[in-house]
């Protein structure tokens, strides 16, 4: 019994962390209707700033904490003023989501440049020794977290429910036009909510930091936990955010204690998927009742400019020749990077069919890469299957997963679709770690052989390169045909207006399923090739960060175009290899690029290029 209570208390402490993270999401969402993925970034920034102010500047802990929160808020104000608020009046909700992913990457990059990639262990506020209360051992930092969470909950509740400022914030959330009419400065409220969420994030970072191991990409994990918590609880309500956080913490601790720590994530994600399917808007519905299906319609519609036929043919010819000649002039490192570029490009083509043409968001594409990669690795090493058969098996499993996922998520659109795919990707992540008999667990699957086809082994980089190039050309030709056919047009019709498309006789469900299946097959194929290229596969090579990176590549390159993603893939893969000494700045640069592209080049680099060429 004491053990159970101990676990529950631990769960509540853990849950307070999630609730604190979730409130930041909820605040920004309620005022602007946007999920701000950068939320976790504020935490890392706040925690490390506090640490440095204490250790470098020698400030007393309380002053350092205050300073960290103030500096982070000021930074949030700058970032919000330059990117977030202008974006709100210019971008669709899904592009805002992408931009906030860019901001998260930017924060990570910044932390990487300033603090490096090593993990930091921050000292707890009140010493390492836990307090014993009625036979329970309570870590002091956990008590701090719960206390701070409580104070922030009460403070936020008071501000929103009882003050004029809170009323104005809620007015913006409810009806921005009416808010302007009664004299509320909507843009200022939007900025304020962003900065306040940043401050809450920084506070969370400062108090949570000592309880976890902190490094540059911890923000990503915190973002995901907070996001999952808020999705379970209901994003449009504060009680929902708090309940979701606590529930997530409890489930995690109970699962760790009674099942396995490797599966604690999987259970939480299973919970999320069930909630998403059963009650997409979360356990507790917000009073505002923002209609997600309406809000997610494009506020801004830009059509994709295409190259003229002549330019396109010349371009294709030049690219093909370049593709054939390049390996002979590149050194080994760059050739490797080029192979990776092309493998990721295969995934991106599928993602583009789903996102660029079909208008859905998938944040779990690397999950299918993982399935393909582990299937290829496992069946060839453990069962000596021929590689082609192993690849096909991977594709088969991916297809089954995709159809199940599509089946349960088809009625979800926009934000919820993004959430469900994210949950799927995270679920695959934890399976990759949990099923260590098959996947090798966290340390990865080693000893994957070369790909061979009817006895011909692709055992040199050059052979592998031409294999991948061949696959890319085949896929491109097939997709170019498909996108010009009725299927491609139907997808674009669905993207523009699903209701109108259905009224015109387009089989909306069928087309969405097909797009999802195509993306899963291509990702799985790419995952297998990836495993054969590296002869090794670990969860972090095909985890959720990779999914987010894939989306970045697509947005930077240009959605809704076949070749755009190649630019994105090359930019984020080849350039860091080519400029190895600058690799430290890769994350920062890709964050700036992603945020900048979603703000200033909504059609990506390919779109910009096309416009220049068409002139």
């Amino acid at each position, binding site marked *: 019994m004491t053990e159970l209570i101990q676990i529950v208390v631990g769960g509540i402490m853990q849950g307070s962390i999630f609730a604190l993270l979730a409130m930041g999401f909820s605040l920004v969402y309620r005022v602007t209707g946007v999920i701000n993925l950068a939320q976790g970034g504020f935490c890392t920034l706040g925690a490390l700033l506090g640490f440095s102010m204490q250790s470098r500047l020698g400030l007393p802990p309380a002053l350092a904490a205050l300073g960290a929160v103030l500096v982070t808020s000021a930074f949030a104000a700058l970032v919000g003023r330059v990117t977030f608020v202008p974006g709100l009046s210019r971008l669709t909700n899904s592009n805002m989501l992408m931009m906030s992913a860019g901001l998260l990457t930017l924060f990570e990059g910044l932390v990487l440049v300033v603090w490096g990639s090593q993990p930091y262990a921050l000292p707890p506020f009140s010493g390492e020794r836990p307090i014993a209360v009625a036979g329970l051992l309570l870590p002091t930092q956990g008590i701090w977290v719960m206390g701070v969470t409580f104070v922030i909950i009460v403070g936020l509740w008071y501000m929103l429910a009882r003050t004029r400022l809170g009323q104005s914030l809620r007015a913006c959330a*409810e*009806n921005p036009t009416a*808010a*302007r*009419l*009664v*004299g*509320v400065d909507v843009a200022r409220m939007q900025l304020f909510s962003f900065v306040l969420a940043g401050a809450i994030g920084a506070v969370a970072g400062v108090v949570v930091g000592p309880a976890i191991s902190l490094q540059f990409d911890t923000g990503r994990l915190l973002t995901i936990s907070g996001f999952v918590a808020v999705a379970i609880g209901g994003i449009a309500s504060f009680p929902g955010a708090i309940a979701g956080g606590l529930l997530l913490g409890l489930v995690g601790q109970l699962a760790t204690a009674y099942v396995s720590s490797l599966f604690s994530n999987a259970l939480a994600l299973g919970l999320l998927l069930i909630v998403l399917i059963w009650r997409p808007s979360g356990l507790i519905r*917000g009073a505002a009742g923002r209609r997600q299906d309406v809000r997610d319609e494009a506020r801004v519609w830009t059509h994709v400019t295409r190259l003229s036929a002549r330019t396109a043919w010349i371009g294709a010819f030049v690219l093909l020749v370049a593709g054939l000649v390049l390996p002979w002039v590149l050194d080994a490192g760059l050739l490797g990077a080029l192979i990776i570029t092309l493998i990721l490009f295969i995934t991106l083509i599928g993602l583009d069919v789903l996102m660029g043409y079909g208008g859905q968001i998938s944040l779990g594409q690397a999950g299918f890469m993982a399935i393909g990669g582990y299937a290829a690795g496992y069946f060839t090493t453990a069962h000596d299957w021929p590689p082609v058969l192993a690849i096909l098996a991977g594709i088969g499993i991916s297809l089954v997963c995709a159809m199940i996922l599509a089946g349960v998520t088809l009625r979800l659109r926009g934000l919820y679709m993004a959430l469900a795919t994210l949950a799927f990707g995270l679920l695959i992540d934890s399976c990759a770690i949990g099923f260590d008999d098959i996947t090798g667990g966290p340390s990865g699957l080693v000893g994957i052989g070369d790909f061979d086809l009817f006895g011909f082994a692709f055992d040199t980089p050059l052979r592998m390169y031409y294999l991948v190039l061949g696959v890319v050309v085949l896929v491109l030709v097939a997709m170019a045909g498909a996108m010009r056919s009725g299927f491609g047009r139907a997808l674009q019709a669905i993207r523009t207006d699903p209701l109108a498309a259905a009224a015109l006789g387009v089989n909306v469900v069928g087309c969405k399923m097909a797009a999802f299946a195509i993306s899963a097959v291509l990702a799985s194929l790419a995952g297998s090739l990836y495993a054969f290229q590296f002869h090794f596969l670990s969860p972090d090579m095909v985890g959720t960060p990779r999914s987010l990176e894939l989306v970045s590549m697509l947005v930077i390159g240009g959605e809704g175009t076949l070749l755009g993603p190649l630019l994105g893939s090359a930019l984020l893969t080849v350039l860091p290899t080519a400029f190895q000494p600058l690799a430290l700045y890769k994350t920062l640069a890709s964050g700036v690029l992603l945020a900048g592209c979603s703000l200033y080049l909504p059609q990506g680099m390919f779109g910009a290029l096309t416009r220049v060429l068409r002139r």
Partner: protein
Amino acid sequence: MMLELRDISAGYGSDAVLHGIGLGVGAGEIVTLIGANGAGKSTLAKTVSGLLSPLTGEIYFEGKRIDRLTTAARLKLGIAHVPEGRQIFAGMTVAENLALGTPRGADAEQLDWVCDLFPVLRERMESVAGNFSGGQQQMLAIGRGLMSRPRLLILDEPSLGLSPLLVSEIFTLIAGLRARGLSVLLAEQNARAALSIADRAYVIENGRVTLSGAASDLLHSPEIAARYLGVGVATAASADQSAAMAARLRQFAWDGV
């Protein structure tokens, strides 16, 4: 003139909906804009309140040029806009909706007056506004607009989606506001009801003022009757309705509201 528009062109993006509009509203006057759906009435209302910036032209309010001011600044000068479709804060209570309408903070006296005007609001002060019927929401929207003690009230389609009885009730009320010294700019498709309470009217077609004059003259102009009053298909019921409204108006004058 309290409000004066000079050569206003406005619209969405660079596409103009209004072309060279000139009009005015005098102190204590009810001026109505009549016109078909899409003629530009709402665009004009938004341009006056600052939700839209004019592409060309000038707007003066009590002698002060206001066309570059924010909505909030115009609200402080005394212009309140009750938009088309009511646009209340559906998830908030009546009390919160009304509180948001007072930019300078709580105003018990004005709240009292608004509640006298719309007793239903006083009865349901703590109810969530989204559960109200269309007519009650419209009353709340007007009440919220009045909370800022405006001198000019812009009403955009207050009769939209309301039953004939409620329409006459709302219009009676609007007529009563004039007695309090308020000026009203009323954009309305229901031309008969609008003309029967207005002092002057402007007819807007395709973003241009095509006709203007005293409301009573327009009400009896055969051209207006044919286009906007549906004479020829008018039923006995609508004639009764205007008679009933006239009776209520007279009563209002008695009450001295």
